């Protein structure tokens, strides 16, 4: 009974919607947007859009990226959401994979294909980039002064002993953009060397946060001094008056933040209008507001930006040094996350203990060189850097299969269970870190 | 209490009813609390369940009120089987040992409660509450909270709260146990006169034989879930059915010995330190049992004369003595068994010294041979 009614109502709604489209170009009705963006950004766009299209009421539903994706998945059977609007491209990839997005080609002209080395839009048109952001290093100037720390410039700086216990990052498994930073380092330096760098930096971590915003939040309040964050967090913090600064390292990726229309969107017309608005010069200018501070994807908009505003289309060093391979990234996405969690996040205490021992041994050896000691430290560093899987293994769909449920056919090989794989990696890391610490301590004894 | 008040207004149109308990069995798990109880309580009777704690008397009372359910048997009130009725439909009024006055209501509201539940018209409630409070002499305290009353006052409120609904039967669960001794004596008289005035069938649970004896028409003595004997206080005292009843009502002297045939026919009870004590007819030689008699059946004979006719001489040693005022109670050792003797006391009388010899005359015809 109610289902029939529901059907009738839906039919009426469709008729109504199409008739409105026929009679008036301007859409109307309620537009529901699920987004992970902060209020500063969403309400600015909401106001600007409603000014331009007064007949549309924009409903913003704020959820973090993960919860947003889960929400769309769970509600797909009776979808009430028009747009999904978030940073991490991988979240859109998941939605795309689950067939929850629908293609739309924006009407706006003048948007380049690539920002930095990253394509702006999804090749299949399922989602479109509207603002670029890059990862970098953010620090609290008061904290740095109190602890006598120099400002870091490059990722490798963060591995220096002086920054021990001062750095923070959010877990790549929790933050799509952090994932891209880790992946960028891996692609820029190669699998083995990249992990070595990642782990050497990780040895200096003070904490690994679960929310992306946890990192800028902690730097802002001075809980820790240095954070690996996405640019707009730092820029908007700065704009809010916090004593923080930000730098892009040479090896970084500029990635677009995206917007996509949800499949079976109740108000498709308004959704399309919104996407076009966001990409329009009017919409792009909103990004320049001090509380938002994102990089427009429309190069023309930079003309209106403040003088020191980073411009990835002009400054070719910005994000262009790594040619980011999306397919490589996609193939080992979950494996990289799980490796980071098992080798770093959940073994942080052991990793830090090993790193501390290495730092101390090296400091002592610098004063009193000793060949055997040097060799021991090198061994210790190798133990820390050692990986349980090679680049080839990481790309193996068999291994990736442990993390996803999709099984294409009944004859597919049954992969190992995720818990088994993780336990193996964790045990590997624990053992290596303990051994590394022991070697470093031996070296320290030799240097005394 | 207000003697001018006519209870008729409270009990108008009420007729006393009897309570019958038929073959009731009740167990908690494997523990049998009541074992095949049969009782017939007459209309208007003031009836007591008397027994030590744990004997099942309160369980039986709560069964009548509907708070316990028997596995077997039935309870009828005024000829109507109430076994299946929930407590609130039984029309039996119960006064709880703790009084169970609701602390969040005033005295007046406490008393009015039952009438309100019966949807009695407002005006009538007021009238009847006034009457009930008047009856227990607490009209002036109607607006106090229970916690502002003394124990005796609380007791009266509990009583007023119960009788105001004009129950068919009044159940009293150790109602006097929380009162001081003097108040207890006073309250039991008030209870009795109230019961007589209302003509209300009343069941009174107590472990105090004096309480039961002084106010109850009949008593059911209970032990171990079994009704040991039913009777008037005097019947129970004078003719206890067994040693338990004998011991529970008043002080009993119990002697162990053998039943032997006497030369001149009949049987006698033979103990050490005394001549054989003749027994009534019908007790065969070798019967197992004990001889029970009361302290007042013994007389102290320090004059050295022969025992009076029908008396048996017992010779013993005074072990200790208790000065009770009107009398002195001596504990006397007779051939290794102890008996108690009450001697009337007059001012100036000397007390017998402990550990001194004593001669007692025993009115043998007052003794009872009890097989269990």
């Amino acid at each position: 009974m109610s289902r029939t009614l529901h059907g009738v109502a839906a039919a009426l709604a469709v008729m109504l919607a199409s008739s409105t489209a026929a009679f008036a170009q301007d859409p109307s009705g309620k537009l529901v947007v699920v987004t992970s963006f902060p209020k500063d950004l969403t309400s600015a766009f909401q106001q600007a859009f409603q000014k331009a299209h007064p007949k549309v009421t924009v409903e913003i539903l704020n959820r973090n990226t993960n919860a947003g994706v889960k929400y769309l998945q769970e509600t797909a059977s009776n979808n009430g959401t028009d747009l999904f609007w978030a940073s991490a491209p991988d979240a859109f990839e998941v939605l795309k994979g689950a067939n929850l997005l629908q293609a739309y080609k924006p009407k706006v002209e003048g948007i380049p294909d690539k920002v930095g080395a990253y394509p702006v839009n999804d090749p299949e048109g399922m989602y479109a980039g509207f603002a670029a952001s890059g990862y970098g290093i953010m620090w609290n100037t008061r904290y740095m002064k109190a602890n006598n720390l120099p400002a870091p410039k490059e990722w490798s700086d963060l591995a220096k002993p002086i920054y021990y216990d001062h750095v923070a990052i959010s877990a790549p498994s929790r933050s799509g953009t952090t994932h891209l930073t880790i992946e960028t380092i891996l692609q820029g330096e190669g699998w083995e060397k990249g992990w070595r760098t990642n782990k050497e930096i990780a040895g200096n971590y003070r904490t690994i946060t679960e929310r992306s915003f946890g990192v800028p939040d902690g730097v802002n309040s001075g809980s820790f001094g240095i954070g690996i964050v996405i640019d707009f967090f730092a820029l908007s913090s700065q704009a809010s008056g916090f004593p923080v600064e930000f730098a892009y390292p040479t090896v970084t990726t500029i990635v677009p933040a995206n917007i996509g229309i949800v499949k079976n969107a109740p108000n498709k017309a308004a959704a399309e209008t919104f996407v076009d608005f966001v990409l329009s010069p009017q919409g792009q200018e909103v990004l320049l507001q001090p509380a938002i501070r994102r990089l427009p994807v429309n190069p023309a908009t930079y003309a209106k930006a403040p003088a020191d505003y980073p411009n990835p289309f002009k400054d070719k060093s910005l994000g262009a040094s790594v040619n980011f391979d999306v397919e490589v990234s996609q193939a080992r996405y979950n494996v990289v996350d799980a490796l980071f969690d098992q080798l770093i996040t959940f073994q942080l205490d052991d990793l830090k203990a090993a790193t501390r021992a290495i730092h101390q041994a090296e400091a002592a050896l610098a004063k009193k060189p000793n060949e055997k000691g040097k060799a021991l430290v090198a061994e210790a560093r190798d133990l820390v850097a050692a990986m349980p899987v090679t680049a080839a293994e990481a790309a193996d769909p068999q291994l990736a299969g442990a993390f996803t449920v999709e099984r294409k056919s009944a004859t597919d090989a049954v992969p190992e269970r995720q818990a088994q794989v993780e336990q193996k990696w964790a045990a590997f890391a624990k053992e290596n870190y303990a051994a590394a610490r022991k070697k470093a301590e031996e070296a320290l004894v030799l240097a005394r | 209490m207000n003697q001018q008040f006519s209870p008729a207004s409270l009990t108008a149109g009420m007729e006393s009813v009897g309570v019958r308990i038929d073959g009731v069995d009740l167990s908690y798990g494997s523990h049998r609390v009541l074992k095949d109880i049969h009782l017939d309580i007459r209309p208007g009777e003031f009836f007591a369940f008397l027994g030590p704690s744990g004997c099942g008397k309160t369980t039986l009372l709560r069964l009548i009120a509907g708070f316990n359910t028997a596995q077997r048997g039935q309870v009828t009130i005024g000829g109507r089987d109430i076994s299946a009725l929930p407590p609130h439909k039984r029309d039996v009024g119960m006064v709880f040992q703790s009084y169970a006055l609701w602390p969040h209501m005033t005295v007046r509201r406490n008393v009015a409660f039952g009438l309100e539940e019966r949807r009695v018209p407002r005006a009538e409630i007021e009238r009847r509450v006034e009457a009930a409070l008047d009856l227990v002499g607490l009209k002036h305290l109607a607006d106090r909270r229970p916690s502002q009353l003394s124990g005796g006052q609380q007791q009266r409120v509990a009583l007023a709260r119960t009788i105001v609904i004009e129950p068919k039967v009044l159940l009293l669960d150790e109602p006097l146990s929380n009162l001081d001794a003097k108040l207890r004596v006073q309250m039991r008289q008030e209870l009795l006169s109230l019961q007589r005035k209302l003509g209300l069938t009343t069941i009174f649970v107590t472990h105090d034989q004096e309480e039961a004896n002084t106010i109850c028409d009949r008593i059911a003595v209970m032990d171990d879930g079994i009704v040991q004997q039913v009777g008037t206080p005097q019947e129970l005292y004078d003719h206890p059915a067994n040693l338990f009843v004998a011991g529970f009502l008043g002080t009993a002297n119990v002697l162990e010995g053998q039943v032997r045939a006497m030369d001149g026919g009949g049987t006698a009870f033979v103990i050490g330190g005394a001549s054989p004590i003749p027994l009534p007819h019908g007790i065969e030689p070798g019967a197992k049992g004990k001889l029970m008699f009361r302290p007042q059946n013994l007389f102290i004979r320090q004059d050295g004369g022969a025992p009076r006719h029908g008396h048996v001489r017992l010779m013993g040693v005074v072990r200790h003595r208790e000065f009770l005022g009107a009398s002195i109670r001596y504990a006397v050792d007779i051939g290794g068994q102890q008996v108690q003797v009450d001697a009337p006391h007059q001012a100036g009388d000397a007390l017998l010294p402990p550990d001194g010899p004593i001669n007692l005359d025993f009115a043998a015809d007052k003794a009872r041979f009890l097989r269990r």
Partner: protein
Amino acid sequence: MTSLALSREGLARVRPGPAVAAVLIALFLLLFLVVPVVQVIFVAFQDKTTGAFTLVNFADFFRNDLFMRSFWNSFYVSAMSVVVASLLALPLAYLTTRFEFRGAVLIQSLGIIPLIMPPFIGAVAMQLLFGRNGTVNLLLREHFGFSIPFMEGLNGVIFVQSIHYFPFILINLSASLKNIDRAMEESAQNLGCHGFRLFRRIVFPLAMPGYVAGASLVFIKVFDDLGTPLLLNVNDMLAPQAYLRISSIGISDPMGYVISVVLIVCSLLALWVSALAMKGKDYATVQRGGGGLARRRMKPLEMVAAYGVVLLILVLVLAPHIGLTLLSFATIWSFSPFPDALTLKHYDTVFVESGQYITNTLLYASLAALLDVVIGTAIAYLVLRTKLAGRQWLDYVAMAALAVPGVVLGIGYLRSFYDVPMPFTGQPLSGFWLILVFALAIRRLPYALRACTAALQQVSSSLEEAAENLGATKLRTISRVVVPLMSGGILAGFVTSFATAAVELSATIMLVHSQSDAPLAYGLYVYMQSAAGRGPGAALGIFAVIIVGLGTYLSHVIIERGRRERGQDH
């Protein structure tokens, strides 16, 4: 004849009222707790590749070092939190109920405020005050050259959790202490017991039901809580592990659900143990019109010491709120003992933007709390006063809600109710705001249930029997005697449920379908996601605290007035 009598007695025993109530409650729990949760956690018993039933995931759990470490960490943190929370709650409860203490009501009210620490900002405030570079440590380092690691690792979790949850012990213990017949204490004094021995041997054991109720709540709550460890970035505990795994996108790892099952089982176990510990300790002490501990006067020196202790504890437990207040007025507060400057502009922002959040919150939280005390009272009554078969299970199932992570419940609701369209509008049922109320009610039911159970335990059953004996039906007895006598406990349950529901986030965030239906916690969440939103977020948090705090204070006033009217306080 016998069989006839038997059947009639059978009729007498099975009265429909309680059974109907039990069935209704069971249905409610089934529909809004069991079904949604099972919808989610059945994954734990599924083979990932074949979908068949398996227990291999549980074997994996016990073979995994990380999970075992998480398990023991959770256990350690919970146990230590109970210890620390008890140290905080005992003096407050004892001093305010046992002595003539000016401001006792105020202290009792302030004592519950930690419970209403809104999510996110609580930990932010604590970091600002006690963190490695917080106010206290910055000052210590500047003046004395050392710092105290309050907030490092598990310490931080224990510290924040005990402060956050100690009111559970305070509320329940105070209620129990108030209900102890003064004769109990006096008779012990009469027998030569006094001072601390009196407390340890008589007063505390008598107040045990309340204490155990509170302590078990603290244990379970800490065991299951994920917000605090996550915000302090402590990941190697069970609840955060479950959350991290369940909420990972694109990954379908059954371990998150396995951990959820483990959490539920552990909570049930804790409840069972506490029930076992309390068996046969039904201290119905309300005898002749109730008593309550006699309040004593203190000697001047004792008074000074007592106020000192109370003040110290209050400062400690209110620290998050003090920090929050500062934050709400702060322009910039970064790596400094105090904010750079103060401003009112955050309140301005909140006033303009957040009226809807506040009205929604008041509506949802009070409806949920109302539902909770009704169901809580009913379950407590069924469990303690009837012989209904399986009645204990209502209690267990309702309490198990404690163990269900909010995310699991949220996802379960979406799965269970999304496909059900609402009559006429055709919108998904899960988007209906009443669903949010049910979710809140389920989440907070355990609090109300424990408070109601403790209250009912202290009502002597003869008070009920007297009413029935005078002709009141069971229902009337409950409404006229039981409920009024439980009112203190019921009100305490209402306040706890209301206060905590008002700041609940984890299930809410999954179920909010439109901004106009969103409660305050959601608004806070949105604010706290940006640098510029920290001040307004804190201001909104302060609003939440004030609203709920006022509600609490009013209820205490009502309780106290009731006690005085009843003449229990002379």
